[in-house]
């Protein structure tokens, strides 16, 4: 009879635990960053940031600039990992899973590069 005990199960650990922790902590961080984002955009200036000049001046402030980039990276990581979890639950084939991982990585990197590029453009306006 096949030995079914744990000692004979062989190694099965993968990165999913680390990914779950990154997802959880990036999510918790996002709650704080989003709160900051909303308060800064809607309550610091009366009526919220709407005027072109106000928005540009706000985005160009060094501290806001840095926080926005951190926000961009965290939200992208959380989004990409979340999409991955949903796509994996659709039971893709092994080959499709590899493509999904690369595609999501490319999307994530593209969003971050685009976002940083846009930040620099806006800051120079």
């Amino acid at each position, binding site marked *: 009879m096949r030995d079914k005990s*744990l000692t004979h199960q062989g190694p099965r650990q993968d990165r999913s*635990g680390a990914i779950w922790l990154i997802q959880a902590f990036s999510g918790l961080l996002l709650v704080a960053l989003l709160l900051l984002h909303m308060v800064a955009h809607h309550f610091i200036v009366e009526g919220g940031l709407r005027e072109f000049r106000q928005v540009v001046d706000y985005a160009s402030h060094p501290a806001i600039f840095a926080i926005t980039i951190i926000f961009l990276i965290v939200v992208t990581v959380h989004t990409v990992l979340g999409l991955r979890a949903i796509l994996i*639950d659709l039971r893709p084939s092994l080959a499709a899973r590899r493509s999904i991982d690369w595609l999501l990585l490319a999307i994530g990197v593209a969003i971050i590069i685009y976002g940083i590029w846009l930040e620099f453009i806006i800051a120079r306006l």
Partner: protein
Amino acid sequence: MPEATVPFKIFRYKQGQNAGHYDTFDVPIDEDTTVLVALQTIRRDQDSTLMLRHSCHHASCGTCAMLVNGREELPCVVNVLDLRSSPVVVEPLRNIPLVSDLVVDMTDFYARVNPADRPYVRHSEFLPWAQTPDGIDSYSRFENCIECGACVSACPISGTDPDYYGPAALAAAWRVVEEPRGRQPQQALNWVDNEKGCWRCHVAFECTEVCPSGVDPGGKIMALRGELSKQKLRGLFGFGRR
């Protein structure tokens, strides 16, 4: 004397058919009739081809688990009149391959639970003051899980991926960590530390909601995660993995 006649709408499927269908049977019911007894009455008096599994009739064996009005139940302890429904809809468990009518193939379920290598007995927390007879150190009792499969039927991820270990197997693994009884807790943790294991759960807690035996598989999956999270964070910050 029967108190009422209650219609039972029952899922039917036989090997080789493409899909299942429902048949309705009127069953005489008295105040003590359980859903399982009603199904046995149908089998005896109306349709001997109705397939169902059962054994103990008192919620100890877990053999008869099925869906009653869309909810995972042990029909042996569900009183028909208490349901206050007409018809009573009876279906086989979800997410487990069908054999026939209300019978599902538990082979994979058992194959998933066995590797956890959980002992079948545990330290008994009941009657802590009771004196033990000579030669007996402490009382043991059977584990809570009766391996009925209700948790797998209710779990959205077991409904998504057949390779997911499922709530019962993961809960069994946590019992090894919680009370090793000679097993290696770290081996149990390593076994579940992957995408098919405890990280796949999406915290819907449906398993805990439907468990007829108080196992709380959802809580145990979270306990596995909590323990593994601690280990991983300790490893990350240089305190050693274990």
